[in-house]
């Protein structure tokens, strides 16, 4: 809607100075200014205010950019995508593990799960019977962290396994 009253015009003057007023509204505002001394006065005041806008220190943009870049590089390993000229892609969010395909992460997760299950099976089958007292003494974590199924806080427990059991696990890993 085009500004019509002096109040409308004065309220939109900052948008006009910033070039964010739609073209038609801008033309209506300019026509009004040409005919209204009071609004021209306010326009001059805003122009003087804009001229008094504090200067931005030289080099600030470069300093911000450098710090942001440094921070992002520190957060994640270098990306192969970042070698592409023209469009640099930072190792951020989706590109966090660029050297590892998505299926690789899933496979690793499945392997850990399989390892834990295998360990549980060997323990329950009587192949490994760690002394519970010894486990508690050796493990700095409180007893309540050690679950009956051989897991500590969701991860398989390897402490106390015999050489034979460890070799079985290594075979499962293909090592």
């Amino acid at each position: 809607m085009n500004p019509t009253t002096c109040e409308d015009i004065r309220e939109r003057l900052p948008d006009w100075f910033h070039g964010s007023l739609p073209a038609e509204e801008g033309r209506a505002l300019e026509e009004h200014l040409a005919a209204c001394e009071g609004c021209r006065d306010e326009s001059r005041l805003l122009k003087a205010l804009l001229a008094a806008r504090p200067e931005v220190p030289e080099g600030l943009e470069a300093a911000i950019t450098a710090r942001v870049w440094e921070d992002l590089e520190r957060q994640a390993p270098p990306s192969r995508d970042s070698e592409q000229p023209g469009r640099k892609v930072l190792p951020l969010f989706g590109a966090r593990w660029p050297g590892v395909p998505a299926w690789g992460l899933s496979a690793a997760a499945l392997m850990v799960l399989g390892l834990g299950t295998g360990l549980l099976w060997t323990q329950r089958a009587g192949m490994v019977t760690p002394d519970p007292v010894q486990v508690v003494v050796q493990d700095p974590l409180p007893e309540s962290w050690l679950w009956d199924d051989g897991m500590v806080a969701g991860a398989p427990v390897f402490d106390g396994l015999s050489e034979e059991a460890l070799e079985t696990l290594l075979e499962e890993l293909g090592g």
Partner: protein
Amino acid sequence: MKDSSANVAAPDADLVSRAQEGDAQAMGSLIARHHASVYRVALGILREEEGARDVAQDTFLKAFRGLEGFRGEASFKTWVLTIAANEARGILRKKGRRKELNLEAAGPVAAPGETAEEALGRSEEAAGVRRLLAELPEKQREAVTLRVFEGLSFREIGALIDSSEGAARVNYHHGIKRLREMLG
């Protein structure tokens, strides 16, 4: 990471989407576009140039670290300015006082085609306007500077200074009226 020619016309929302995917050029464009406003908002609150520089840097660090969670409910500009204002207010709370800004510390810089005398005159006039602005009550000064210096809407100003859109509008008009009276 300058605002490359391809990015000049790109809306902030597009740049934010690309930045969320890790596009460094898009991040650079967002910095180029908004660092001055971020710095001035921090300066307006802290009234201390070095602190405002630090706040400007910390603001963009926080913004890009948290960009994954940015949903675009407010504009990117309002979002980073809010981060800057909160950072600056946090520093003020820690310090418990305000330092005086030496507004005249930076000497006048002649614009192209301008003589040294003209530059001095312009600088003195600007310093005079800043002194008048500094005399306004805080809310009025914030509303005037955010509206005139940064071109924010009253709704955005309200969000930034923790007041309603209507209160931001009233503060702006009172501030302008007072400045007009002070200028005679």
